[in-house]
């Protein structure tokens, strides 16, 4: 009896050993640093959902080669992101990196990844540093450059004929960058530029300032909880009559879902929309809504999905030989994948040259609040920092 059991065990063991032998010695390793807790938890969750959808569709493979996606939370703390990347590099020996939501985390982990020659495909942040002076062949700003949404919004403001505007953003460098991007294209007068505390809860004082300034419209960049607080209080304060324009992050599905009706009528700009007429996009949105209880995807989920597809295409291009980094870089740069935003091309600084669209928060056929694509604002637009990049 005992013997039989042992034999069975041995057989089973052989079975698993054989199964391993069939696969290549080491799978491709992708390090994902997630913001699944901390200030950007919502966006981090969207990123994860987008990644996992693509990973599932590819059957845990990249370019047909088995791949392992290491996903670890770093709670939105750039120092912790740094430590996590060191673990990915030295312990897990990753071949690709992606994940962080915020620019500060991207800037913190970039140098170590570049030194180790590991391609970093950004699933969201596109800091101006990496688009300009500190551009690097190992960084791919697959999403957008931070200022471009705002540049598109500035152009929209001109087209709508707004002459006097109030701009509002949190008091940190990204906030100033975003308002700077808006002012680069907006030609009217800036009545007031308000910088608020990071993580502010109460916006009554700012709303009173806005009322006193009597602007034609307001441009606001307030991500995550700050945006939710602001819009709720803005509408309750009776300023609904003043139009709001925002970069897509301040009016995406995550915010809409938390704020509800007061979001109606907010104009926002983005390089993607769930109703963008591209075959790959229709497939993505349908699959996403099927997998995640009918929820509309956000830009973050769409970008994360694209990141995995871009890796997949590059690995296929080099025939699975990911150790040949030069070839991988060239393959990534070709971007020979079906992006959910349509045709995809990088500029010389590895940031996309792409279209930007105007979206409007409306109710869909079933009464669900969602962004609706209204117009194309910019075609084949390139960021303002490409000239500073020597690569």
């Amino acid at each position, binding site marked *: 009896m005992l013997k039989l059991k042992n034999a069975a065990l041995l057989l089973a063991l052989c079975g698993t050993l054989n199964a391993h032998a069939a696969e290549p010695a080491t799978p491709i390793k992708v390090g994902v640093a997630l913001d699944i807790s901390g200030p950007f938890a919502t966006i981090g969750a969207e990123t994860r959902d987008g990644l996992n959808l693509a990973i599932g569709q590819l059957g845990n493979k990249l370019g047909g080669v088995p791949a392992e996606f290491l996903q670890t939370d770093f709670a939105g703390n*750039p120092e912790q992101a740094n430590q996590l990347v060191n673990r990915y590099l030295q312990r897990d020996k990753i071949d690709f990196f992606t994940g962080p939501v915020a620019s500060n985390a991207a800037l913190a982990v970039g140098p170590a990844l570049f030194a180790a020659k590991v391609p970093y495909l950004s699933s969201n942040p596109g800091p101006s540093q990496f688009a300009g002076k500190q551009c690097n062949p190992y960084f791919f700003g697959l999403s957008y450059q931070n200022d471009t949404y705002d540049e598109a919004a500035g152009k929209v403001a001109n087209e709508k004929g707004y002459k006097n505007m109030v701009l509002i953003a949190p008091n940190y460098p990204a906030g100033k960058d975003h308002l700077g991007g808006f002012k680069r294209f907006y030609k009217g007068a800036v009545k007031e530029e308000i910088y608020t505390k990071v993580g502010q809860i109460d916006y009554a004082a700012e709303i009173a300032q806005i009322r006193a300034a009597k602007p034609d419209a307001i441009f606001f960049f307030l991500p995550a909880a700050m945006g939710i607080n602001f819009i709720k209080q803005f509408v309750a304060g009776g300023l609904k009559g003043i139009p709001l324009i925002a970069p897509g992050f301040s009016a995406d599905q995550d915010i809409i879902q938390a704020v509800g009706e007061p979001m109606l009528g907010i104009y926002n700009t983005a390089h993607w929309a769930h109703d963008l007429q591209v075959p790959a996009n229709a497939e993505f949105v349908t699959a996403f809504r099927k997998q995640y209880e009918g929820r509309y995807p956000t830009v973050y989920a769409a970008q994360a999905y694209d990141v995995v597809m871009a890796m997949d295409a590059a690995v296929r291009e080099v025939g699975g030989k990911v150790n040949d980094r030069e070839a991988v870089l060239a393959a990534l740069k070709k971007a020979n994948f079906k992006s959910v935003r349509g045709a995809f091309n990088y500029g010389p600084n590895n940031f996309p040259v792409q279209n930007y669209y105007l979206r409007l928060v409306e109710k869909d056929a079933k009464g669900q609040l969602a962004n609706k694509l209204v117009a194309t604002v910019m075609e084949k637009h390139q960021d303002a920092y490409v000239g500073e990049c020597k690569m």
Partner: protein
Amino acid sequence: MKRAPGWLARSLPWLLLLSLALFPLLAPSLDLDYYVGFIRHLLIVMMAATSLNFILGYGGMVALGHSGFVGVGAYTVVALVDGGVTSAWGAWLAAVAVAGAFAAVIGAVSLRTRGVYFLMITLAFSQMLHHLAVSLSAYGGDDGYSLHAPLLLGVGLDDAHPHVLYWVVLALAALLFTFSCRLAVSRFGYALRGIRDNETRMAALGYPIYRIKLAAFIGAGAVAGLAGALLASHNKFVSPSVMHWTESATLLVMVVIGGLGRRWGGPAGVALWLTLAEVLKLYTEYWRWPMGLLLVLIVFLAPKGVVSLFEGPRRAG
């Protein structure tokens, strides 16, 4: 009943130091390279925790703003590097001095209060420093600041070499630890503990209470500044999040779970807390609640910290 510690207990710290010193040499062959950096980080945080344990455990000063001094140290290095300084020792010494100066001012004000008021006023000052760093656009504000050029350590070495920095950190941590142990059993250390236990009596005995507490506070702040400076060299990156209030709270938590006023309390707490976080995050995104549960359990089952579980009947010094 006080027994003299056996030869094993006496040589244990030396064995630990020796194995830590040898670790980087063995790590490559064991494929443990990453853990050189990990332990380096632990050692740096242990310095900050030990300094906090000194004022908290021996001085009874419950400060919830200690990461503010860590941040001051880190930003001093940033400011000097930005200004063109290349000497590591110079930058680190300056960090110690600047953090000490901040601690002098903040301590002078805060030590007028006690108990929860002291806790809150130290928190307030570190929050101010945090807001200041977020708004400092010259050093990257909330984006943080990347230190690209290595800092020179002399004799042809710099802090970019992972092993060299590891040994420097280890040596500094060992020195600091020895010093804090000696200080705890010095006249100053006993005076501080006396103040913690009975301030009125110590005042009656003629001790300058306020000055002794302030001196301890300044010293702890300066050491935290050193930890911050080393952290800047370790990460090659500094951002305001090093002085977020949750970092102060975590330091406090690590000291308490390790063992308040016990010489191994700081190091043990840091090692336990950070290793647990590292391991849990490997397996689950729900890594917070087990750590929360650990805190509750320690408060009830090992109120004197995990170190106390390993102590015999002896009272720790």
